[in-house]
């Protein structure tokens, strides 16, 4: 998604010049997020769903919940798997076919942030130990691209998890049997992913696609409701100094509180 043309070079210069004055190309403050809008329940056939717009980046996450065999070494825990895919209609450079390494990284970083926070209490998703557990699949599809898909997908997945309705199963003679009634997924915390880009010596939060194309390096830090860091990923061709990383940690914790309130607001009172 980085196609360098003369135009991009000019844009990079413009972005750099503005940053020298502490400004950004779309007028935001350095640590300011674009607007986040969340609609939940947009795909009723899914057990939970959310459409998230982060600026002009747009993602739908659908949750499917179904009985599954547990992983052989963790028979006392349910399964959580989060994926992400760029649909070909989301950007002119996206091609059909197997995912490239950037998309694989995207999916794995979003999954890791939610998994490592232990947002879903997987110990409560056991139908019969070592035999049958509940599997929760959160599949993100990117509809439109304007940078920072890490956060957009993470917010879509967590909003969908918060609003999902889980069926109930009892283990019978023929394996898991569907019962009456629905209940929310058991959650313990709300992870918030905060992605920052380094351009020159400047750190900016929530880079848009222009900023994304000309950044030197990026970092995604996921924090939980308790204000602790639970996952992190550095990317891009450049490096960070120790001081810059300390700054990024603080921005991540500070920004996450406001975003967590927005995400929490999707839960019906």
């Amino acid at each position: 998604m980085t196609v360098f043309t003369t135009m991009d070079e000019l844009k990079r210069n413009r972005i750099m010049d503005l940053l020298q004055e502490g400004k950004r190309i779309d007028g935001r403050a350095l640590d300011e997020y674009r607007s986040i809008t969340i609609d939940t329940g947009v795909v009723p056939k899914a057990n939970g769903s959310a459409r998230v717009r982060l600026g002009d980046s747009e993602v739908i996450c659908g949750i499917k919940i179904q009985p599954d065999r547990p992983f052989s070494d963790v028979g006392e825990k349910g399964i959580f798997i989060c994926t992400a895919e760029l649909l070909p209609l989301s950007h002119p450079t996206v091609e059909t076919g197997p995912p490239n390494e950037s998309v694989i990284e995207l999916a794995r970083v979003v999954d890791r942030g939610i998994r490592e926070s232990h947002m879903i209490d997987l110990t409560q998703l056991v139908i019969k130990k070592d035999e049958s557990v509940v599997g929760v699949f959160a599949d993100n599809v990117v509809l439109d691209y304007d940078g920072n898909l890490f956060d957009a997908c993470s917010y879509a997945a967590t909003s969908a998890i918060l609003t999902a309705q889980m069926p109930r199963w009892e283990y019978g003679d023929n394996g898991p049997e569907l019962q009456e009634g629905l209940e929310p997924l058991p959650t313990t915390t709300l992870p918030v992913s905060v992605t920052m880009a380094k351009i020159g010596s400047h750190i900016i939060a929530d880079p848009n696609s222009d900023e994304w194309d000309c950044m030197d390096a990026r970092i995604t830090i996921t924090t939980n409701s308790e204000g602790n860091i639970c996952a992190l990923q550095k990317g891009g061709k450049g490096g960070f100094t120790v001081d810059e990383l300390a700054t990024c940690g603080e921005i991540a914790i500070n920004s996450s509180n406001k975003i967590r309130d927005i995400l929490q607001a999707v839960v019906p009172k």
Partner: protein
Amino acid sequence: MGGRDTDMVLLDENGIRCDGRKVDEPRRITIKAGVLKNANGSAYIEFGDNKILAGVYGPRDVHPKHMSNADTGILRCRYHMVPFSVSERKNPAPSRREIEISKVIREALEPAVMLERFPRTAVDVYMEILQADGGTRCAALDAAAVALADAGIPMRDMVSACAAGKVADTVILDVNNEEDQAGQADMPIAYMPNLNQITLLQLDGIMSLEEYNKCIEIGIKGCKIVYELQKKALAEKYFPEEQS
């Protein structure tokens, strides 16, 4: 973090870890440069029980041609685990995990390699994990950086990597396989020791902001230990008479 229940004592009352190390002590590390005949550069590393071979080819013609860049050379990295490197046979096809690790290793090496001197060419780095025991991405990166230097490719700095982590609420250096499975956090770090830049950083596991800063600090300490061993490996190959 596997988060698996275990009876193993990860850190005893004297601050000694399950494999007898102190909290800030790395595993035994040995590096040898120039171990392959055909590769332009190569290195073999033993990092605790990890055994990893790295080979470098290039700068050379790019195939497929459309990948080449008229402005700069390109770096291509493949991190690969051989099927017998872990307890249960691993499918030899590249997994999603290996594709991600290949990408983060490439991005950790790119700032150091002067690719702009070799437009339209590729430098290929192959890392084969022969035996894995936790912390393979860091060890593979250490070997790859030595192999790049051994290939005579101009570099701005060495890249040295080591993981930090957290077990029993204590920040530790160089997480081994048991600590990765049963511990609380694992943070691989790669560092350019002279330019003072961190070029790879990942984390899984929960820690406070204070512990995060401490992890980076102790991890860099580990990288500096590795850096000395990387220099030693290269000196042993190129200045053998000066080594006593």
